[in-house]
């Protein structure tokens, strides 16, 4: 394709096409066909330049659709972007997609493509049977067929498609803080930023478009003697030179959150290619989310033009008036040859003037006002343009396929009476541009709950009063309904000056630039153009183009009793699309208001929500994905575990060795085999566990002991220095929340251990009680979880092995069970605790983590002859379960009291202070005898390992629903006992030892088991006490 395909591109001329670079032609494909455009084009402008009318098919009726707008409000030109599978981007607005070499896009709807769509037949012939809400009324019978119907409904759903492969690009976030954030870099935003910057404070100015300048890019007024686009360019340069100003072009403010937190989405490479190009061999993010906390937010987001709603207003060739100017002035593209303009205001006359100046034919301007008389009207008349006062385009006619406008029916209208007041005249044309007025972009303000307020003078909603009294917020320019350039520039400067003054920052508000002012006549409100037929019978008049919501649909919704605008929205899907109703909502609300006999403010608006324009998930996720999705916490021995083939278990964020499969006869052990080997090694020889992940809290202060007594269920007043004790913690509802061993290091000094998962929560638990309830207790808590590396050496040979490495006297009488000692292990100062979670003779060696590997490796250097075996959490679980030791969170679920666990020995009912959890234990429900209680289960068949989570019944013969009396909490095969065994909770279980229970399983089998004591191994505890 050559440049000559760009039949709608204007010849070079001063003031036209300021944003394209004709020296940089770019090739792109659309629906598989190749075209050419220029650097600086948007995909939309390039398509228009090439005379592509149909860019997509509509959602419900599959009607051909063309470009209507030039910015974020575009509802039709929604394309699927991307040449490769991984680079697919669904639902890109062609009006906001910069052209790049090799860009490949297709319309999102239409089969085989938008031009030759087959689905349109359904739309054409099915349309009459698909009024708003039709699916609620049908597809109900027979009930069994609904899922089939739904499959077809779904097929028709959706716009673009998700990529089939993972995103090759990366995204990132930048946290920013500033005194003034200005959203929108049109005249108002530029002026606001200039003023704020003069105050020396940090200013961020962002604009969603490729280029700063906003509406100035489409204007020919002079500002300070410069053409508007030139003034904008120079102002931007001034700002760029200031150190306190950050300029973010191509950056959309998407969400305005509480307390002036604003998310800005900066598209950094989308204009360069499908995927982000590398720079100097380094990756860069495709887009970046700026998370901005601003002292003051200035909304300078301008106003969106409202199209008029008339029959056939969706056929390609119907555009917004302002968009016509934008395409001509920015891109030197004529979106047609012969224009009919239908307006309600002076401002939109520019479209006709621009059209004519560019060499197009202006057939007529239909002006809904009886006596238009502003300066621009006069200019148009003077230029020989026919102005038909008191009229509007009531219908666009089109070619047979509906691919392009071929005429406009213009008629005199009676707005008040909502009817025609004259005969319609047909004007041949290929383009209809309309302007029904302007809606201030109040979206962002609404995000934080600022309700829009209707203003009769400007015929639009503007943001209301801010709700947060602390943070600053102001609205300037078009967003505030201030449209005249002089007033808008001055207003922006004044508002920002005042805002800064409130913070004690003084700026000398420099004279606003001199602008010629243009006298504008008063605009008139027109939201729905009457037709010769009643709305329900007229050809479709579209309100929401993307969702195919017509004026008739809105009327029908109100007929059917949907009187709230929120109901209308949900019944018709108005504003649900990717454009969120930027174009159609206000018209739709006004139509609903008329149908209901209300005023527009009575009917009100629906709620604007983030995002202002859609943002891809990846950008919101930033770098919190893949390997950085969530931290992996490592112990000091982690690399050793990796090197020794450990399989890991996720416990909270920690990676814990789960088991260490060995290669036996060339084959890697299964978990079952590895665990059996590890278990036997511990029971018969010696094993070592990396227990570093247990939470550890250093507690110091004269009231430390008292504090422990209040927090734990059991007593601490008598625990002597040098001793350790197991403790149980409850919440104040009496339910067990954590456990662990706490050691008395000194009279005022304890070391508490917690479960791995509970560490952070328990530290906060201690703090909350201390800080809020018992501030008088003199005690401090400090986490030392990461400081200490912990190795549990356990098994009959533990003492012999450790003795080789330490100076501590390990003799059973001098270093007793539940005591701790300090000494040196493998040359490293250590604290050794004689506590046991396996039931075997155990020594927990704690050293400062940097020295851990020295000790760990020394253990192995000396341990071989004792059969030292590393073991993981699975083996630990088997061993502790054989001993009936609970795991909080596995054998408990937040509904178990210490009594339920059979741990009354760990409850100090006589303690003077009513410790946390005590009172709740005497409530009627916690005193019930038939509570679920922890017991052991012995499957009758020894080789059966019950399923963890299996439900228990007393009577296996009963019908479903069965009465369940408990469930299995822990269940393993014990290589020591050579049988399966389990811990379980059973109603009244403590009094049912010896009874039989049943476990009916999914495979139809029912297992039988005997209720036994939860201690399966060495009930006297003689092995740990040797």
């Amino acid at each position, binding site marked *: 394709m050559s440049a000559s395909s760009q039949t709608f591109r204007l010849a070079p001329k001063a003031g036209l096409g300021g944003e394209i670079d004709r020296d940089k032609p770019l090739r792109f494909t659309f629906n598989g066909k190749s075209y050419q455009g220029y650097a600086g084009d948007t995909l939309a402008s390039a398509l228009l330049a090439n005379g592509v009318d149909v860019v997509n098919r509509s959602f419900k009726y599959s009607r051909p659709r063309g470009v209507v707008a030039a910015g974020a409000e575009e509802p039709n030109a929604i394309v699927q972007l991307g040449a490769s599978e991984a680079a697919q981007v669904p639902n890109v607005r062609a009006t906001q997609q910069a052209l790049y070499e090799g860009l490949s896009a297709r319309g999102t709807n239409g089969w085989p493509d938008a031009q030759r769509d087959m689905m349109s037949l359904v739309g054409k012939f099915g349309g009459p049977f698909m009024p708003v809400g039709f699916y609620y009324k049908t597809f109900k019978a027979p009930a069994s067929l609904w899922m089939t119907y739904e499959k077809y409904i779904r097929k028709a759903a959706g716009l673009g498609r998700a990529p089939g492969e993972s995103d090759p690009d990366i995204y990132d976030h930048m*946290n920013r803080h500033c005194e003034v954030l200005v959203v929108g870099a049109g005249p108002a935003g530029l002026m606001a930023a200039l003023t704020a910057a003069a105050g020396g404070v940090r200013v961020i100015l962002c604009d969603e478009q490729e280029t700063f300048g906003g509406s100035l890019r489409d204007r020919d007024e002079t500002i300070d003697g410069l053409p508007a686009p030139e003034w904008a360019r120079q102002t931007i340069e001034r700002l760029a030179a200031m150190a306190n100003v950050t300029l973010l072009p191509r950056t959309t403010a998407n969400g305005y959150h509480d307390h002036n937190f604003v998310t800005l989405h900066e598209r950094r490479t989308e204009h360069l290619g499908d995927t982000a190009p590398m720079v100097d061999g*380094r990756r860069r993010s495709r887009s970046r989310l700026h998370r901005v906390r601003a002292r003051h937010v200035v909304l300078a987001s301008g106003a969106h033009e409202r199209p008029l709603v008339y029959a056939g207003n969706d056929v390609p060739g119907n555009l917004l008036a302002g968009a016509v100017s934008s395409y001509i002035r920015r891109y030197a593209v004529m979106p047609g040859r012969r224009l009919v303009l239908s307006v309600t205001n002076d401002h939109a006359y520019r479209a006709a003037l621009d059209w004519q100046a560019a060499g197009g034919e202006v057939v007529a301007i239909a002006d809904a006002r009886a006596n238009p008389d502003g300066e621009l009207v006069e200019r148009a008349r003077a230029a020989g343009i026919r102005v038909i006062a008191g009229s509007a385009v009531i219908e666009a006619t089109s070619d047979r396929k509906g691919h392009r406008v071929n005429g406009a029916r213009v008629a005199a209208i009676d707005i008040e009476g909502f009817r025609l007041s004259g005969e319609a005249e047909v004007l041949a044309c290929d383009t209809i541009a309309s302007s029904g007025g302007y809606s201030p972009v109040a979206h962002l303000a609404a995000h934080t709950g600022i309700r829009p307020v209707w203003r009769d003078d400007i015929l639009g909603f503007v943001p209301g009063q801010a709700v947060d009294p602390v943070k600053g917020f102001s609205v300037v320019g078009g967003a505030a309904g201030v449209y005249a350039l002089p007033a808008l520039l001055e207003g922006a400067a004044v508002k920002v000056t005042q805002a800064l003054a409130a913070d004690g920052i003084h700026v000398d508000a420099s004279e606003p630039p001199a602008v010629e002012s243009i006298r504008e006549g008063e605009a008139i409100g027109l939201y729905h153009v009457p037709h010769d037929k009643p709305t329900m019978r007229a050809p479709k008049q579209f309100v929401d183009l993307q969702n195919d919501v017509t004026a008739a649909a809105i009327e029908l919704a109100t007929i059917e009793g949907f009187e709230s605008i929120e109901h209308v929205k949900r019944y018709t899907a108005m504003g649900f699309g990717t454009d969120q109703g930027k174009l159609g909502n206000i018209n739709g609300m006004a139509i609903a208001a008329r149908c209901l006999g209300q005023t527009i403010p009575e009917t009100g608006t629906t709620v604007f929500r983030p995002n202002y324009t859609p943002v891809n998930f990846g950008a919101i996720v930033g*770098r919190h994905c893949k390997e950085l999705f969530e*931290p992996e916490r490592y112990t000091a021995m982690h690399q050793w575990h990796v090197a020794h083939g450990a399989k890991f278990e996720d416990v909270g964020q920690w990676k814990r060795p789960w088991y260490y499969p060995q290669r036996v006869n060339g084959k890697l052990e299964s978990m079952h085999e590895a665990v059996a080997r590890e278990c036997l090694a511990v029971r018969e020889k010696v094993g070592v566990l990396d227990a570093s992940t247990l939470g550890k809290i250093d507690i110091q202060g004269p009231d430390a002991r008292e504090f422990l007594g209040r927090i734990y269920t059991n007593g601490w007043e008598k625990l002597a220095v040098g001793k350790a004790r197991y403790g149980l913690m409850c919440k104040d509802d009496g339910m067990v929340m954590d456990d662990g061993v706490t050691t008395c290091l000194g009279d005022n000094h304890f070391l508490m251990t917690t479960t791995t998962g509970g560490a952070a929560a328990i530290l906060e638990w201690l703090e909350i009680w201390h800080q809020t309830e018992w501030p008088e207790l003199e005690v401090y808590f400090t986490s030392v979880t990461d*400081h200490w590396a912990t190795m549990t050496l356990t098994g009959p040979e533990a003492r012999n092995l450790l003795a080789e490495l330490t100076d501590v006297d390990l003799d059973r009488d001098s270093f007793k069970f539940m005591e701790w000692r300090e000494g040196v292990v493998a040359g490293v100062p250590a604290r050794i605790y004689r506590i046991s979670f396996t039931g075997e003779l155990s020594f927990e060696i704690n050293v400062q983590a940097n020295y851990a590997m020295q000790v760990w490796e020394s253990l192995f250097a000396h341990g071989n002859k004792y059969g030292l075996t590393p073991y993981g959490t699975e083996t630990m679980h088997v061993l502790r379960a054989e001993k009936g030791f609970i795991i909080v969170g596995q054998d408990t679920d937040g509904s178990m009291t210490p009594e339920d666990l059979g741990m009354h020995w760990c409850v100090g009912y006589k303690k003077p202070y009513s410790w946390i959890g005590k009172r709740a234990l005497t409530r009627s429900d916690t005193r019930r005898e038939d509570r679920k209680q922890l017991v052991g289960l012995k499957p009758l068949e020894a080789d059966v390992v019950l399923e963890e989570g299996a439900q228990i019944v007393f009577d296996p013969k009963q019908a479903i629903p069965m009465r369940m009396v408990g469930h299995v909490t822990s269940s393993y095969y014990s290589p020591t006992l050579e049988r399966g065994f389990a811990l379980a909770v059973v109603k009244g279980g403590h009094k049912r030892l010896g009874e039989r229970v049943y476990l009916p399983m999914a495979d139809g089998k029912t297992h039988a088991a005997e209720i036994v004591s939860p201690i399966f191994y060495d009930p006297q505890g003689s092995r740990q006490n040797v």
Partner: protein
Amino acid sequence: MSKVVQFDPHPAQAAATQSPLHHVAAKPAVGETGVTLTERAFLDHLIVRGEPGVLAGAVEAVLGLELPTQPQRLARNETGSLQWLSPDEWLLIVAGGEGFRLQRELREALGEAHFSIVDVGGGQTLLELSGKHAVEVLMKSTVYDVDPRHFPVGKGVTSVFAKATAVIRRVDESRWELVVRRSFADYCLRWLLDAGEEYGIAHQPTQPAVASHRQTVTDTETVS
């Protein structure tokens, strides 16, 4: 003051040590170096808790530092640095091996008062970030306002760092320090290398390469 035991974690003879990041190799920047990341491992870190009125005198006497009582202040001298963490909590970082002696001297100076000093040196490490893009890397990582206008030299805060937490301090015009927990160090490092890639980030191996062993061998570990 007798009822608290103190523990010197360092061996009497040099022992093999591993910093939390020992397993991560040095890596030069791709292209021009815009940020340099260096681990300052094996320092002694102590958490000192108590009322300012209780601590100030002893701190001044033992460390020669004025206890920073203003929030977010970081005081430094040749002995080390002392950072405000909360109204009754400070982070003291000194040369590896010095912690035990200083703790003992502080304990002696503080006598029977209510306070707490806890050695956390094995549990955290210090990363130094320098170079002209260091601030941007931080902006990608923490919600705290690290703009030099808001974060002058001599400030230190605890804040969110990626999905972990970090103590963030500005030690001079060009250098920032991050104190991160040992178990999160690998994650934080990977995060930083990724965040810094576009600026050209160099990672230098652990400094110093070996830990100093015990400075003064005391006769008894328990101060009583």
